């Protein structure tokens, strides 16, 4: 086993040495730091963070790292294997004692470490958010861990596709498409899917007969509130509860939903993770198709009537199921599957060679 790790680590260092030697890489990292600081400053101003705590800053930076990671990682990992084949250095590695598993896993770890460099560069900003306060330790640990694993998944998809497809440009583009499908495609599927499944809602309204009230706005002598005949409205409503599962596969939703949420006194989330998680969980609930809005029975002479149906975000959150582990499991399977496929395709001696591809 130690032999396996030694060979694998050799591939990791070889890959990193070639990548990190480039000036372009440091420029990219510098631009990233600049952007994160900009995001941090704007979030502090927008969320009034000095008073409300660092929840918004912290979650904003985590999402920004995820965004940048998903945008940069495919370009850095999507040619890991087929790029070496084009350069003629893959076969010279494969005739050594390095096994295909060491090669594929080493390439993946190198791509992951490269993506993690973005996370490392954003640590000062995350710490700044933590210093502002109001973030639980569990949120910090879990969100950063899940973020790191999501970056690992994207690196695995990139390296995997670079082993499966023979042309580097094509595998980079397909990696971007996978990332886009998860990040944006799930949102589109959710929005369009929900909107295309419509249900009829029959809303019954029982209104107060305000003309029957006396001049003080009180019910007449008998004490009974005068009611109008119930009226029925019908309209259509989208059924997001049928398609909310799409959102579970979204990496941003996974990070948000996995993080434990803290609520303020009014039952509202303190950070971006919380709002997203509540939004996703709200979508789980089927709309009431036969709502009855009975103003009459809840009428109070002082004119204040409470809608008893109102739920705070916290109540919505508490009465629904978490979904992040479903999405998380899908992502892990996707990454592992991509690497396994690349391993099968790159193993030598080659038995079946796809048309148009070469060995050395």
């Amino acid at each position, binding site marked *: 086993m130690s*032999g396996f790790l030694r*060979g694998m680590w*050799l591939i990791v260092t*070889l890959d990193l*040495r*070639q990548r990190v*030697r*480039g000036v372009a890489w440091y420029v990219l990292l510098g631009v990233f730091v600049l952007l994160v600081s900009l995001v941090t400053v704007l979030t502090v101003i927008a969320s009034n963070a000095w008073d409300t705590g660092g929840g918004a800053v912290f979650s904003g930076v985590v999402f920004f790292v995820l965004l940048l990671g998903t945008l940069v990682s495919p370009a850095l990992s999507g040619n890991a294997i087929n790029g070496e084949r084009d*350069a*003629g*250095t*893959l*076969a*010279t*590695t*494969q*005739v*050594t*004692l*390095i096994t295909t598993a060491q090669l594929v896993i080493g390439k993946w770890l190198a791509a992951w470490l490269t993506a993690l460099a973005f996370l490392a560069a954003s640590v000062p900003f995350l710490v700044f958010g933590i210093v502002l306060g109001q973030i639980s330790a569990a949120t910090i640990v879990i969100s950063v861990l899940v973020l790191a694993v999501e970056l690992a998944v994207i690196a695995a998809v990139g390296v995997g596709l670079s082993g499966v497809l023979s042309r580097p440009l094509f595998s980079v583009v397909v990696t971007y498409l996978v990332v886009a499908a998860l990040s944006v495609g799930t949102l589109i599927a959710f929005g369009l899917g929900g909107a295309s499944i419509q249900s009829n809602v029959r809303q019954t309204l029982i209104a107060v007969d305000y003309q029957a009230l006396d001049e003080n706005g009180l019910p007449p002598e008998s004490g009974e509130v005068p009611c109008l005949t119930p009226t029925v409205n019908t309209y259509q409503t989208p059924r997001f509860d049928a398609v909310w599962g799409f959102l579970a596969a979204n990496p941003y939703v996974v990070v948000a939903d996995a993080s434990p949420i803290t609520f303020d006194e009014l039952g509202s989330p303190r950070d971006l993770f919380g709002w997203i998680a509540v939004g996703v969980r709200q979508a789980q609930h089927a709309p009431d198709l036969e709502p009855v809005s009975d103003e009459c029975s809840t009428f109070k002479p002082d004119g204040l009537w409470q809608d008893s149906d109102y739920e705070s975000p916290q109540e919505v959150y508490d009465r629904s199921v978490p979904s992040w582990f479903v999405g998380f499991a899908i992502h892990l399977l996707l990454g592992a599957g991509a690497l396994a496929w690349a391993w099968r395709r790159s193993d*030598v*001696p*080659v*038995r079946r*060679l796809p*048309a148009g591809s070469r*060995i*050395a």
Partner: protein
Amino acid sequence: MKGITVEGVARSFGEVHAVRSATFDVAPGQVAGLIGPNGAGKTTLLLMLASLLAPDAGSIRIAGYDPVTEPHQVRRRMGWMPDALGSWPSLTVRAALTTSGRMYGMSSDAASDRAADLIALVDLDALADQPARVLSRGQKQRLSLARALVHDPEVLLLDEPASGLDPAARASLRELVRRLAGDGKTVLVSSHVLAELEEMADTAVYLAEGVTAAPDDVARAGQTARGWRIRSLDAERLGAALEAAGFGAVAVVERFGAVVPLASEADAAQLLAHLVGVGVPISSFAPAVGDLEHVFHDLNRQGGEA
């Protein structure tokens, strides 16, 4: 048997039969030239020997091991120099060789010692700490050769090792290959430059359209009439003497002397003695083409007629 043993090996890519039937042996201590026209399947054959490509049929033994079922054992003992130039562009020559050594399980120290030895061996001292991307084609070729030798393999597969090398580097490649064979290594070298192989190969494997020539055919081809080039200080007397000896119709007289087809070495010796005897001042008397080239053309011709 150690060395290289190939029997009935075939490999096709879809409809293209790159190698149809290859059978040959190379014994330890021997240098064998792999000769064939472009597209004959030389590189495909070498890829199969290098444990990168599985044959569809037939069997291969490298140093006694099967590259398909025991690739690890084969890779430990086999060095492969590919025809496609490839090197990690941002690594220095020294780092590239050290990394290759470590890929064969050497310790860092052993690998860097070995790298230093090889740099001296292939004469890249001046460039040892330059990144590989600045190397010329010939220099990359030497780096590639050094990489193939990094784990001191007992079987060496060289695919077009001389291409891009200057005459001095060719000479030292030849010397190196002969020395390795002297140490008991088995070497298979493919090349188009037949004159080059002539000077380093003990035996030859002829490959045409994916089929290795049978030993009988090779022997027969070696015995067919071949041209001998004769140069004289006095071209006119040479012409007259050839005419008198009955070669007037077949001799081709050109700027570099006369080329005369002769059936055997005995005939050649006889003609030379005759020419010297009649007083023609002969300055050079040698086969117009090398042995390998002669057999190569002859086999190709046979293939064309068949």
